Structures are given as C-alpha cells and as structure tokens.
C-alpha cells in the first residue's frame, strides 16, 4: 500500500462523515456544508427568479389582471427579500465556507459546529418565509419594510412578522458564519502564509466578514424593535407616541448600503482569482487591490443616507453622503483598472469563465456609472423610487454578483464534482442570460426616466410605457430560459462528464493542491508557503502533500488537527484540535427555531422556554470540548513542535469571542444611536413622564460594576467579579421594574426597557460564563486552567459591566439632571 493511500484511509477515518441519515444530520465538514449552503441558496435563487417572472408577467401589459395588487405586493417583497437574504448572502457564504480552508492550506474552518449551526438556522429561517408564501401570507411591505407601512395599523396581518422573525433567524446564521470566516482567515492558514502572501480572495472575504459583523447588527436591532412594536405596542416608530419612522430607515440602511458591498466584494474576490488564471499571468497591483478593498470596507458605511435623499434631511447632511457616495467609486475603479491591466499584461483566453467575466465587466461598469448618477442629490430627487433605481440596482447586483458567480461555477465546478467541463451549452446560456438581462433592465432606465414608479402593479395604456414594459418582460423570460440551460448544463456535467485532471486551469492557488473532488480532510499534510501562488513553483505539490511531506502528516489520538498561525507573519502558533461530527448544531438550531415560531404564533409567554434551552445547549456545546490531560509541546513535522489550542491563551475560541463581541458592541452602539436620535430628532419629545431617579439603586449598580472591573483582574479570579455583576444585575432589573415608565406609553419608556433589558441580559450571560469557567476549573479541564477560558470569561465580564453600567447611567442621568 502506498504512503498516500495509507494516509488517505487513516485521515478519512477521522474526518469522514458516516453514511446514513445520522451522518447527514451530524456532519460538521466544511466542504459538505459549503455545498449544502450553495445548493440551498441556488434553490432560493430559482424561487426568487420565478417570482421575478410573475412580476414581469403582471407588468407586460397595462391593466393586467394576472395578479391582484395584494398578491403583487407579496411577489415583489418576496423577490427582493429572497434574492438579498436567502440567495446572495448565503451563496457567497457557502462558497467561502467551501473554498477558504482549501485556499488557505487548512483542513477546516475554525468553528465547524458553528458552520453547521449557521446552515441549519438559514434553512429553517428561509423555510419560514417559504411557508408564509405557500399560505398566502408572505410579507408584502417591500423588502426594506418601511414603517409605518409595515407597522401594525397598516399591516395588521402576520405577513410582516414572518419577515421580521424569519430574516432575523437567518441573520443569526450570517453573524456566526462571519465570525467563523474572520477567525479562520486570521488564524487557520498554512505555515508561512503571511498576510501579504494570502490569496486575494481571502482578503476580500476578511473585509466582507468584518463588514457583516458591523453592518448586520443595526438591521437585527431594527427588526427586534419593529417586532416589539408590532407584538407589544412599544412605539419605536410611531410618531404619535414619540417614535420616528425615520429611525427604521436609518437602522435599515446602516445595514442596507454596506450590504451592497458585502455582496459585491466576494464576487470581486472571485474575479481577482479567476481573471489572472484566464490571462495566464499574475494579478497586477496586489497591494493596490488590498488597499482598495479596505477603503471600500470603510467608505461604504458612509453612504447609507443616500437612500434617504428625499425624506427631508438638511442640505449639508445630504452633501456629506453624496460626497461619500461619489468617493466610493474610486476604490472600485482601482480594482477595475487592476483587472484591465492584468488582462493587458497577460495572454487572455476566451474560455467559458472568461466569457462570464466579460458579462460582469460590461454590466457592472454600467451599474457603477448609474450609481454615480443617483449619488448626485438633484438627479436622485428626479429618479428616486422610479424604475431607474430598479434598473441601477439590478445592474450592480446582477452584474456585480450573478455574473461573477456564474463564472465561478464554471471555473470551480470541476473542483466540487471531480469532473471536467465538456459541453458548450454554457456559452448559449451566457448569451441568453446576457441579452435577456440587458433587454429587461436597460429599458427600465428609460421607462424610469419617463416616470414609471417602482412597485406599481399596473399602469394606464396611454402613458407611453407599454412598449418598454412588454420588451422588458420578453427580456426577463429570455434570461429565465438562459438559466434553464445553465441548470441543464450543470446536470449534464454532474452525471455525464469524464473525470477531470488535477488543476485543469493551471492555477497557482492552494485549492488545486488536492484530490478532486476533495477528501473530507482536504490535505494529508499542510504545506509550507513562501509565495502567493504556491503551485507555480511546485506544480506537484498535491502529490507531495498527499504523501505526507508537510506538517501534521501523521494522524494522532483520532484528533482532527490543523495549524493556527500568528496573524500577520504566518509563523506557526499552535495546533487546533477541531470538534468532530455532532447533532448539537441541529438541536440548537431547532430550539432556536422554536423561539421564533412561538413568537410568530403569538405564544409570547412560552417564548422564554426555548431561550433557556439555547443557554443549556450552549453550556453543553462548550463543556464537551477539550480534556483534562495537558500534552505540552507535540511534534508537528520538520522537527517543529507546538502546543494544542486548549493550552494557549490566544486560541481560536478567544478570537471568536472578540469578534462576536465587536458585532454585539455595534448592536449596542446602534441602540444608543436610536436613543439619541429619538431624543433629538423625533417629534413629541421630551416624554410626558421621565424615569423616577433613585440614587441608591444607581449607586449599587455602579459599585457592582466597579467591583467587577477591579477585582481578580491579574489572577483571573472570577468569583469576585461575578458577585459585582450580580449587584449590577439587581440594579438594572430594579430600574426597569420599579423606576422606568411603561414601555407602551411613549418611545422613551420603550427604549429604556430595551436598553436596560440588554444590559441585564448581558450581565446574566457574563455571570453564566463566569460560573461555567469556575466549574470547569474545579473539574480540572486544561482549557480552564492553562488555556483561554478564564480570559474569555473576563472578556465577557468586561463587556457586560461596560454595557450594563452605560445602560444604567444612560437611563438615570437625564432624569437626575432634569
């Protein structure tokens, strides 16, 4: 038996997924879950596409009786929501989950159970929306759910609740996946892969995932607030009781604009990966592109008000956002020129992925240019809410995301299936999609400028829009036929194509240094990387890695091992022992789902039960990890040694908590923004009645926070800080229970309830985590004595005391000063 085969069998025993339904439900393998995410997202894309066809059928002729206005509202709301939340984001997440470890020379992502949990949450949350659609009660207030249209008086049915709860459920998946991706990119790379040797796709995903951590919390907050208003009558967005519908718009677009770049950047990463291979050269301007991505990541947060140019905001504020909106075109332009330069410098071949990239260039550049047009305030005032904007956003998203992902499909499909591409149907599909798309949406620019508003279900025959709409609809169906061909092509390739050879495109990145399709463990040994394109210098790397001529080549203790590196330099830091297959993610997702279903059914009294269940499962989740025996330094190959992650301070778990808490901090920051916004901008303020201030309660809380902050810091003792937090908890609960005005009477009381509730919840969580680590220490777990667990508990304690004290002081101060 050859060495490679022996290793393959040994690793497959450790990393493989058992056959049968139990294996299917319990797998945490990133390749399996990545493919599942992509297939699910594609299914949602087809559903969203069918809805688009129904929209175009309705609009093809004036006065159409195809779908009434009520159904039509559900059609366009579901089309937008599905494409944004259930197709685009999960599609690139699935792609990143599948591809990143392979490109980075790792065996899996940092948190495999979280990967699985994310998929289940996405599947269940998305299914809720589909159930709503089948029952005929799908959301119908538009995909950005503007209040007061989506508030109870104007949307009394359950439709909007399906959106708010279903999408929030899916967002949980987005947040955990983003943490997973960030930590994997920063820590789980092949030895020697310093940040400047990282494939560009990893840079794109690093920035994208960071943007998700900052961009999604405002939307989650907005959804929670709106659901609280709808369920319990807490008036955050009701102007009569001190709320403001503009608060929803701010929170939504604080998410919504970065979202466009969150969708575009992974696709641009795909372009930056495929294009140089097609041009048979290296990417031009690696450093310039990294700088441009970072600039985009930040600048794209300064654009959100450009969706609100017509709501009556002062000129100066409009100008800030108009300036930022035009500015953001520059880093995008830098990338476009880097790609053009790469084509110029290389010897491009018009293979199928390249054809789709040409489709991307043409379409996306046009979308970018109309973007600069609508960034200019006076033009936007004319075009706002017309079909022109619909056309612009489809050029950007279809051009900037769908075309690159189609290119990616043809480029990497052989990687997933292990078969080579051998049909020409893909070319016909391209032309149908390309021509169909431009026919549909180019005309929408014109009819938009002629005045056709978006989202209308019909229009008069004599207004001059009929011809454009009919041709748009024809174009839409041509696009759909193109996608039909694409699906047939995929099936043919999947079932009939011959086996592919290794690295069919002659690429230089590590994902091609393995068997195709990839085995469960990716690589039998980890390479030492000293170039951005390791396969260029060593075309036979796949064979030598399979023979075990790299790091961690010998399986030991039935562990799923991979290496963690120092963030910047890529020097070896420690060994990560990943968890194996388990049903915990499925159970946790089911219990999480139970919470959302109970909320949806209005069974509010029962809703806390699954939350307690999630806490219990979370406890179990953390408890089953690690052991009681320290191993010290273990050999990893080439004479090197490293500790396992349970015995180091900077384990992936620590990093994961840091990034999770930064997302959480953004949530809290958005809440404070909401409080300040309502206080200064909303009508009907100041509130009729302020909180009754109590100096003793405030003093108890602040003293508790001070004890938690100051005690046990150096020796990592936890009992003192936990006692301090308990005092803070009592003060927060007493304030909300005894001192604050009713949350239903005025937005002031509602905001206070959420602020203090948030503080109390996090203080309780930190107490729980502190107790967990104390118990683990007592039981003798290595990670709780030598490892990062006390440090993680300290992180949570610090976060909880800071937010809890801020909430307490923020609630008392205005009343004390008044």
């Amino acid at each position, binding site marked *: 038996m050859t060495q490679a085969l022996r290793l393959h069998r040994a690793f497959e025993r450790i990393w493989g997924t058992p056959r049968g339904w139990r294996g299917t439900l319990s797998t945490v393998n990133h390749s399996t879950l990545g493919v599942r995410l992509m297939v699910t997202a594609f299914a949602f894309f087809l559903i969203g596409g069918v809805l688009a066809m129904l929209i175009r059928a309705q609009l093809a002729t004036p006065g159409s009786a195809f779908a009434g206005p009520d159904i039509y509202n559900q059609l366009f709301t579901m089309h937008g929501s599905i494409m944004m939340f259930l197709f685009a984001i999960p599609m690139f997440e699935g792609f990143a989950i599948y591809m990143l470890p392979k490109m980075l020379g790792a065996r899996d992502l940092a948190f495999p159970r979280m990967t699985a949990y994310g998929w289940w949450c996405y599947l269940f949350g998305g299914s809720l929306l589909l159930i709503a659609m089948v029952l005929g009660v799908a959301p119908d207030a538009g995909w950005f759910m503007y209040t007061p249209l989506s508030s109870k008086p104007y949307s009394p049915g359950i439709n909007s609740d399906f959106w708010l709860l279903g999408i929030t459920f899916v967002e949980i998946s987005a947040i955990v996946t983003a943490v997973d991706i960030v930590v994997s990119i*920063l820590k789980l790379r092949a030895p020697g892969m*310093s*940040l*400047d040797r990282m494939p560009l796709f990893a840079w794109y995903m690093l920035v994208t995932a960071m943007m998700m951590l900052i961009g999604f919390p405002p939307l989650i907050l907005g959804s929670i607030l709106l659901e609280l208003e709808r369920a319990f009558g807490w008036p955050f967005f009701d102007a009569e009781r001190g709320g403001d519908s503009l608060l929803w718009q701010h929170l939504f677009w604080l998410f919504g604009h970065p979202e466009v770049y969150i969708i575009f950047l992974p696709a641009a990463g795909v372009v930056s990966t495929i294009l140089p291979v097609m041009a048979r050269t290296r990417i031009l301007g690696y*450093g310039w592109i*990294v*700088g441009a991505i*970072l*600039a985009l*990541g*930040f*600048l794209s*947060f*300064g654009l959100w008000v450009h969706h609100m140019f017509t709501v009556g905001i*002062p*000129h*100066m*504020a409009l*100008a*800030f956002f108009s*300036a*930022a909106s035009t*500015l953001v075109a520059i880093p995008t332009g830098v990338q476009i020129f880097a790609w053009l330069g790469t084509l110029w410098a290389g010897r491009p071949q018009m293979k199928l992925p390249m054809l789709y990239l040409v489709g991307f260039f043409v379409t996306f550049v046009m979308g970018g240019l109309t973007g600069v047009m609508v960034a200019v305030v006076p033009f936007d005032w004319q075009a706002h809410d017309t079909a022109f904007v619909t056309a612009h956003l489809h050029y950007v998203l279809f051009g900037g995301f769908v075309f690159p992902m189609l290119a990616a499909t043809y480029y990497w499909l052989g990687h997933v299936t292990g078969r080579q591409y051998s049909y020409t149907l893909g070319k016909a599909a391209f032309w149908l999609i390309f021509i169909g798309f431009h026919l549909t949406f180019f005309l929408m620019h014109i009819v938009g400028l002629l005045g056709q508003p978006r989202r209308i279900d019909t229009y008069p025959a004599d207004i001059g829009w009929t011809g454009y709409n009919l041709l748009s609809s024809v174009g839409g169906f041509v696009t759909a036929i193109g996608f039909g061909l694409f699906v047939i092509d995929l099936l043919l390739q999947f079932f009939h194509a011959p086996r592919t050879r290794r690295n069919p495109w002659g690429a230089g990145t590590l994902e091609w240094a393995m068997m195709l399709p990839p085995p469960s463990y990716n690589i039998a040994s980890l390479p030492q990387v000293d170039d951005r394109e390791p396969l260029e210098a060593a075309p036979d790397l796949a064979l030598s890695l399979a023979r075990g001529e790299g790091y961690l080549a010998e399986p030991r203790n039935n562990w799923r091992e991979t290496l963690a590196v120092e*963030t*910047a330099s890529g020097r070896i830091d420690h060994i990560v022992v990943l968890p194996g297959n388990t049903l915990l993610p499925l159970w946790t997702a089911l219990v999480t789902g139970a919470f959302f279903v109970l909320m949806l059914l209005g069974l509010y009294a029962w809703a806390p039960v699954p939350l307690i269940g999630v806490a219990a499962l979370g406890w179990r989740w953390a408890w089953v990890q690690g052991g009681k025996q320290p191993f010290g330094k273990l050999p990893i190959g080439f004479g090197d040694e490293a500790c396992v992650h349970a015995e180091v301070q900077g384990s992936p778990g620590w990093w994961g908590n840091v990034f999770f808490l930064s997302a959480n901090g953004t949530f809290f920051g958005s809440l404070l923004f909401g409080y300040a916004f309502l206080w*200064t*901008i909303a009508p009907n303020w100041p509130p009729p009645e302020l909180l009754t201030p109590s100096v003793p309660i405030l003093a108890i809380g602040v003293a508790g926070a001070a004890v938690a902050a100051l005690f046990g810091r150096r020796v990592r003792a936890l009992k003192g800080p936990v006692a301090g937090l308990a005092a803070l908890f009592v003060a927060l609960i007493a304030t909300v229970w005894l001192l604050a005005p009713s949350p239903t009477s005025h937005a002031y009381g509602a905001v206070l309830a959420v602020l203090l509730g948030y503080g109390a919840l996090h203080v309780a969580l930190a107490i729980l985590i502190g107790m967990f680590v104390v118990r683990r220490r007592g039981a003798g777990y290595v990670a709780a004595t030598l490892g990062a667990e006390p440090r993680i508990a300290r992180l949570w304690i610090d976060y909880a005391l800071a937010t809890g004290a801020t909430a307490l002081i923020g609630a008392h101060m205005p009343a004390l000063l008044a």
Partner: protein
Amino acid sequence: MTPLLRSVSGLILWAVAFSAIYAIQGLSCALGWDAIGLGGPSLARSILIATYIVSVTILAWLCWRLRPSSGTRDFLAILAFASSVIGLLSTIYTGLPVFWLSICS
C-alpha cells in the same frame, strides 16, 4: 493584531471624523446652535469647521507618522500609510460641505 489595526487606523479615523461631523450637524439643529451668531459664522458652523480642521490635522499627522522608511518591504506598514492617506483625502472631501452649505434646511 496590532499591525492589522494600524493598517486601517487612517480609515477608522475617517469613520470617526465623518460620524462626529454628521452628529454635530444633527445636534446643532436640534439645539438651535444654527441661530446663535458669533459675529461671522454661526455657533454651529464654527464648531463644524473646527471639527473638520482638527480631523484633517490629526489625519495629516498620522500620514507623517506612518510614512514608510525608504525601501521598506513591510506590506502592513505600507498599507498603514496608504490607509492614512486615503483617510486624509476622504476626510478633506467628505467634510467640505461644512464651509458653505445651509446647516439645518
């Protein structure tokens, strides 16, 4: 982590300056600072211009501070300098409206 944070420090400062200027603009209107005259420009405009100048100065200092030594090949150091230049230019450009546009209408 610190080198990575340093490599985006200029952009973080842009975000801080942008948010501060937008927040001061909103706050000034809510508190009526636009109507308080200080001889020449209103109180609101004076504070906005002062914030703008302070932000630009800090970012210019950061560019100077992070300038890479000649011939360096340290990727993150060059990135840090580039991001501070981008931060500086972005702050100069996005903050320009403080000088002449109407603040509260």
